[in-house]
């Protein structure tokens, strides 16, 4: 019986998923317990947004999750539209779908880097980043920025799409699709990767639901649950697609779900381009003051369910307010890095060497815990 050893992993560690630390309790090689140490990225968003006008808050909110900013904007926008009690124009719905799916693609490609890096598959990281670069250039062209776009706006999208939107988009898809296919062949079917990832971090479907997993991590366990399908928000109701899901719920399944989601995203974008009405308004004019109300924006982000809960109440009873009264964001990463990691480590023999694969397969984005 060896003595338990407590060590820290991160925040400065090449295998750490961003600026977040873990406290590990080790018994020999095996990790017995794992505790999250968050707070390195805490900025107090929820308080800062209470001071700013609602349109300025849209500029704030993508900074919550830098890897997948458009879904944060989308959830905020959905909540705001419920407070204003409006429906976005038809054209904007399709543009939002395309923007959100590209954001998902970019996020999954960045995840490839986080995941393949610790296994020392430098070729995979390089291809993924090259494919992501094409998407960032496309974002730069359509929205005006590479990372933080501020494009999805309450009442539609912020400005009209450029004239050659369709050709540009198809061109980007034409570049990135072969790269993803090569990743599929070169990385996901590589025997070394399969041996490292298969059987690591098994998560049963019932546990995944109980512990609060969402997104690809839940679908990797075999649960066919996707908010795009079940809520049919924006134009997802008119688009026909399948939800990829895994079987065993191990790291390999979760990775494979993300890979298939990339194909699904490309498929959705192609379909949305076909069905999109290119004429018509793209944005409604909204009043500067907020009505009293409450909105909950739930979207399926790249990592899972992202919820923005906005409450608009007058801070003094005489005037209508320009700022929301309270905003709460619930990111998908919190259950993944706390309850699920603890559960897997307690029920399975995870060594220190497996930990980067396990954490990588959960695709965490630490800033949405800290906010």
């Amino acid at each position: 019986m060896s003595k338990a050893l407590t060590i820290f992993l991160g925040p400065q560690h090449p295998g750490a998923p961003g600026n977040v630390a873990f406290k590990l309790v080790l018994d020999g090689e095996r990790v017995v317990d794992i505790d999250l140490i968050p707070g390195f990225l805490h900025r107090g968003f929820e308080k800062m947004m209470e001071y700013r006008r609602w349109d300025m808050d849209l500029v704030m909110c993508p900074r919550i999750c830098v890897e997948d900013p458009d879904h944060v904007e989308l959830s905020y926008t959905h909540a705001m539209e419920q407070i204003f009690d409006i429906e976005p124009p038809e054209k904007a719905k399709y543009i939002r779908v395309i923007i959100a799916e590209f954001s998902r693609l970019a996020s999954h490609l960045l995840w490839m880097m986080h995941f393949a890096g610790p296994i020392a598959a430098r070729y995979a990281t390089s291809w993924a980043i090259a494919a992501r670069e094409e998407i960032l250039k496309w974002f730069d062209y359509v929205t005006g920025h590479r990372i933080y776009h501020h494009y999805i706006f309450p009442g539609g999208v912020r400005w009209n799409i450029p004239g050659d939107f369709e050709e540009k988009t198809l061109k980007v898809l034409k570049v990135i699709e072969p790269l993803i296919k090569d990743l599929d062949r070169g990385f996901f079917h590589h025997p070394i990767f399969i041996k490292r990832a298969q059987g690591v971090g098994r998560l049963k479907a019932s546990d995944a639901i109980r512990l609060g997993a969402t997104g690809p991590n839940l679908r990797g366990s075999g649960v066919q649950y996707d908010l795009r399908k079940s809520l049919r928000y924006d134009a997802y109701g008119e688009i026909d697609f399948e939800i990829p899901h895994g079987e065993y719920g191990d790291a390999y399944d979760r990775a494979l779900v993300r890979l298939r989601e990339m194909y699904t995203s490309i498929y959705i974008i192609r379909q949305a381009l076909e069905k999109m009405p290119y004429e018509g308004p793209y944005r409604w004019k909204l009043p500067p003051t907020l009505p009293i109300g409450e909105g909950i924006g739930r979207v399926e982000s790249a990592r899972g369910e992202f919820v923005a809960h906005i409450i608009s109440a007058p801070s003094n009873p005489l005037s209508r307010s320009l700022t929301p009264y309270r905003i709460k964001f619930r990111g998908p990463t919190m259950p993944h890095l706390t309850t699920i990691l603890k559960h897997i480590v307690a029920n399975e023999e995870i060594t220190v060497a497996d930990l980067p694969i396990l954490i990588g397969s959960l695709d965490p984005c630490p800033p949405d815990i800290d906010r």
Partner: protein
Amino acid sequence: MSFNDELVSLLPPKYKGRLSITGSNTGKRLELYIDPCDVRSILKAVYDAGYNHFIGITVVDYPMENVFELVYLLSSIERNGELLAIRTKIKRDEPFIDSVADIYPLAYYQEIEGYEFFGIIFRGHNGLRKWILLDNWEGPPPLRKDIDTRQIVLEIFYGGKRYERPRQWRSLGGYSGLERGGENE
């Protein structure tokens, strides 16, 4: 969306009429107002009725009415992501409520957030501590409405002046300290 019969049958008789459907679009939800003393029994019943996916706890501070409102957001994956919001109000000067961390594992961490950002004590919770705010903030819970963090920050870092660069105590390099531009307004 319709009422879930199983849910209605599991609720205590006093709450059967209080269930309502509100919201639109992605925020369409069942809502239930409960008394804070029943939070454990209701959440247990709701868990058994299939709402076993915990989303989060939203705490709203109303200093005028002297209450904290807690909104428990739950969803049911069997019922295609149906959202259930359970709302309760507790007194602001006696912020105590029962913990539900043993029913929903994720609530453990959401309750820690409620503690550090609003100072709500969840009875029966064994790990209430500063978690995210550790080293980042000392003092009363910052998200309470009566704490004007913007004013505090302005006073300390900017000398009370908006639209100015922060007042620097020293510079180790990379800043000449010269202010450029025209005459200030």
